[in-house]
């Protein structure tokens, strides 16, 4: 009887999680023919091939990108929400306004930023020019391109962060704030010692979710730089895409091996976050 109820979820679990995972492991151990069908067992060679400077660079890019996206994204959302706490009139409207980027799809946001950054016709460079400042090679310099994508991603993520934290701040009991005020806490002191700790669960949630999102970012990279210039914006996910689908390739073996590495990275990050940060989170 119990299995009767469990059955459907076991089937779905097996079909959408166990099977794809098993298939990925299988593919990662095989070489492909030109159509992408696995046709020979190659053992762990896809994994050993990854021990190359190019691949280490991909991992470094992934880490830099993720940290660059998560830290400003979470801190930015927190600052906005805290500042809005002091605004009495129009607070709801402003919160809504700041949450708007959340409503943009990755594709449309990326296309807008592509216009801002477009080499030769950059809207941002036009503004800089009017202000008498130097032009920035947003997408054409190996040093700058990754940061241009980081800026885009932070902007896209900010709305969600504001939504989550605004909801969190609304759920802090009034008595806590009143008690702190009676004790003489105001402004930054109140924010740092009372509001932020009380937002712990929301902040933790936001950090975990935006880390996973950052590690899985694809659309903005694809639309803005396609991983270039010279691989400087190729993250793990983008590298998987390039091996599996881009440029008429169909190296599903190598792509699957990388997908397993990605899985491992996400797992380790999440486990670390649960182990380190969650201990400090205060659940009321």
């Amino acid at each position: 009887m119990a299995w009767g109820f469990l059955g459907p979820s076991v089937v779905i679990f097996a079909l959408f999680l166990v099977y794809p995972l098993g298939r990925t492991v299988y593919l990662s151990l095989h070489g492909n023919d030109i159509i992408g069908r696995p046709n020979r067992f190659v053992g762990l060679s896809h994994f050993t091939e990854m021990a190359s400077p190019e691949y280490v660079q991909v991992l470094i890019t992934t880490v830099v990108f993720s940290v660059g996206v998560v830290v400003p994204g979470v801190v930015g959302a927190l600052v906005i929400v805290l500042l809005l706490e002091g605004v009495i009139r129009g607070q709801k409207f402003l919160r809504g306004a700041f949450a708007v980027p959340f409503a943009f799809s990755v594709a449309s946001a990326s296309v807008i930023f592509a216009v801002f950054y477009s080499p030769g016709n950059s809207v941002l460079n036009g503004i800089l020019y009017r202000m008498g400042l130097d032009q920035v090679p947003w997408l054409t310099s190996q040093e700058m391109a990754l940061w241009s994508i980081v800026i885009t991603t932070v902007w896209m993520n900010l709305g969600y962060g504001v939504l989550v934290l605004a909801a969190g701040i609304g759920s802090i009991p009034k008595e806590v704030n009143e008690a702190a005020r009676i004790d003489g806490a105001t402004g930054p002191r109140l924010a740092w010692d009372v509001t932020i700790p009380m937002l712990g669960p929301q902040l933790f949630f936001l950090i975990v979710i935006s880390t996973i999102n950052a590690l899985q970012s694809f659309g903005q990279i694809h639309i803005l730089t396609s991983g270039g210039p010279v691989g400087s914006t190729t993250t793990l996910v983008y590298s998987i895409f390039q091996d599996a689908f881009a440029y008429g390739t169909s190296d599903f073996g190598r792509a699957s091996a990388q997908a397993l590495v990605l899985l491992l990275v996400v797992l380790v990050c999440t486990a670390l976050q649960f182990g380190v940060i969650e201990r400090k989170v205060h659940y009321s």
Partner: protein
Amino acid sequence: MTTFPRGRGIKAAALLASLGLLLSACSGDGGGGGSDLTAPGPDVLDGLDEAVQVEFWHSMDATNGQVLDELIEGFNAENEGRVEVTGSFQGDYDTALAGHRAAIQQGETAELIMIYDLGTQFMIDSGQTVPAQSFLDEDDYDTSTVEEALLNYFTVEGELRSFPFNNSTPLMYVNRDAFEEAGLDPDSPPTDLEEIRAAAEELTVTDDDGTVVQYGFGAAVYGWFIEQFMARAAVPYCDGANGRDGRATEVLFDDPKVIELVEWWDQMIEDDLAVQIGRNTDDGQAAFTSGRAAMTLESTGSLGGFIEQSDFEVGAGYFPLVGPDDPGGSIIGGASLWVNGEGHSPEEVRGSWEFVRYLLTPEAQSVWHAGTGYLAVNTEGYDGPEAQERAEESPQFSVAASQLADSEINENTAGCMMGVMSEARVAAEEGWEAALTSDATAEEAMSEAARGVSGTIDEYNESVED
């Protein structure tokens, strides 16, 4: 109330999970083709109960897609009750090819597909299609009016493999207004790198602070251009006579001619005569149409869009040479049409061919060329009313055709035939871009990129020779 014993339940779950693995292990075989793929005669379409359905996968959207839809409608109207073609847009060329691979795996290919030039060797190796030659032989089709350079590209080992359709060559585009302002003659645009630089020095405009407001030159870092420059300098792109005499084993884009080109390009950017564009051709087009760059390189297929989008007069000239003594010549680009035979009935195969034959008529080609700017595959198409009208309106439309007509037909202008051509193009772009954006010299960057491709070629060759 009964319950299942625990042990059996777990076994069932394990079985289910391992079933997945088992299934995946089985999917490794099957397919491959190689059976009797020849063209059926016209009689297979006689006395049908209902029209044969032909699905046509293509990569034409926007204006080009509309023109194609018109042609499909025209064909369907002529062939009611016999053949009915349904066009299906599959995304860009790369996406369409990826989709086609998946379709081969599942044994559900479309009847007719459009595949870009770089996929040609892959299409031959996957053995799914009926060689174009076989249709020509069956119908005694006269190819004398078909553009020779196109036949040259799609003929492999003496046999035409697919039907050229949406094809183009790149041109040099100039901003005629900017040329006149700078005191240059827009009717004789620069023809080689040195002349472009000289013109760019005149065309580049800086403001009082020294910021460039108009660059002389600006084009995308696009691998196709390297292929063109090499063909025009009579340098093969890969060994084995551009892969036409046997399988290519290495690419040759670390040739001194290419190094010269990349060094020149780097210096142009360094000296603020050219704008740094990156690899996205849309950005190159935008830099030209907005007036930021007074000269650019692009496909003939962009001509219509350029004229429409820019508020200056657009001029077109031959694609430049690296050095003044290069012989010239031009490789075509674009896509061709392949008729799938594997898993399709003779009626479907015949129906696909009849549609292709319709597309190759002078009438259809006139509409196609005038509407899109692509070459008329059938050169009689240039005499059609639509094409004539277009040529009168904008004489730039005839530049591509004459560039091609002036081109010598040999293995260099046939272009490289290789299974991993798209990866090679990307590698060339990366080497080129590395030279422009890092301290690496052009020579280091291009030879490293060329070396990188060798491994990919070996892997591909091994996988098809087994």
